[in-house]
């Protein structure tokens, strides 16, 4: 089955991203396809390549990034970050940084920034859409 995920909260502050990750891993292990993970609201902060958790803690960003190549059928799990939510919260890719005159960017390369249409499209294309939030 084709499943998509919406994540509304950032890493560490709320369990939402952790649960969503465990859910996605379990779904892939059972042979389902995670079509798209859409990071919305503070969820966009899950995509920061600047994240440095304590040594003895999980690395939520890398966990998601590693998942991005792991669907059983070889299809990539798309990790999409909402552009409007991201800009408001200081999450930028090279293109958005350039447009806004900022000298660097912080989106992990496993994620891509795109529009809210990608969330609607995920709802249309997938058999299931599951929301994780606060």
């Amino acid at each position: 089955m084709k499943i998509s995920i919406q994540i509304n909260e950032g890493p560490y502050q709320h369990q939402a991203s952790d649960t969503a990750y465990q859910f996605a891993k379990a779904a892939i292990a059972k042979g389902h396809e995670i079509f798209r993970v859409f990071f919305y609201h503070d969820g966009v902060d899950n995509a920061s390549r600047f994240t440095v958790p304590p040594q003895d803690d999980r690395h939520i960003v890398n966990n998601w990034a590693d998942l991005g190549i792991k669907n059983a059928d070889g299809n990539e799990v798309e990790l999409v970050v909402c552009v409007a939510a991201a800009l408001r919260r200081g999450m930028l890719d090279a293109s958005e940084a350039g447009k806004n005159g900022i000298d660097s960017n912080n989106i992990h390369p496993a994620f891509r920034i795109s529009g809210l249409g990608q969330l609607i499209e995920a709802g249309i294309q997938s058999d299931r859409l599951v929301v994780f939030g606060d």
Partner: protein
Amino acid sequence: MLHTINKSSFERNSLQSCLNTIDDTSVILLIEDGVICAANNANSSMLAELATQGRVFALQGDIDARGISSKVADNIKLVDYAGFVDLVVEHGTTVSWV
């Protein structure tokens, strides 16, 4: 239809809201702090009837994390993340009461 509850019924109104609108065939999955609703406590009556009907599930990992595995109320079915996936697959649309 699958309803997920991720908050304690002591802290928030999400379980009550879900119960106000749930239909006769839907099931509830308690996750994250929502597993507090699975323990024997002053709010247990909220879910007792649905649990008797076999319609209440809770994530084992979240229950263990909060140290309440010996407190789980009768008839609540424990699942792991694979079981969570199965519930999503089997029950059609998922409503998250975030």
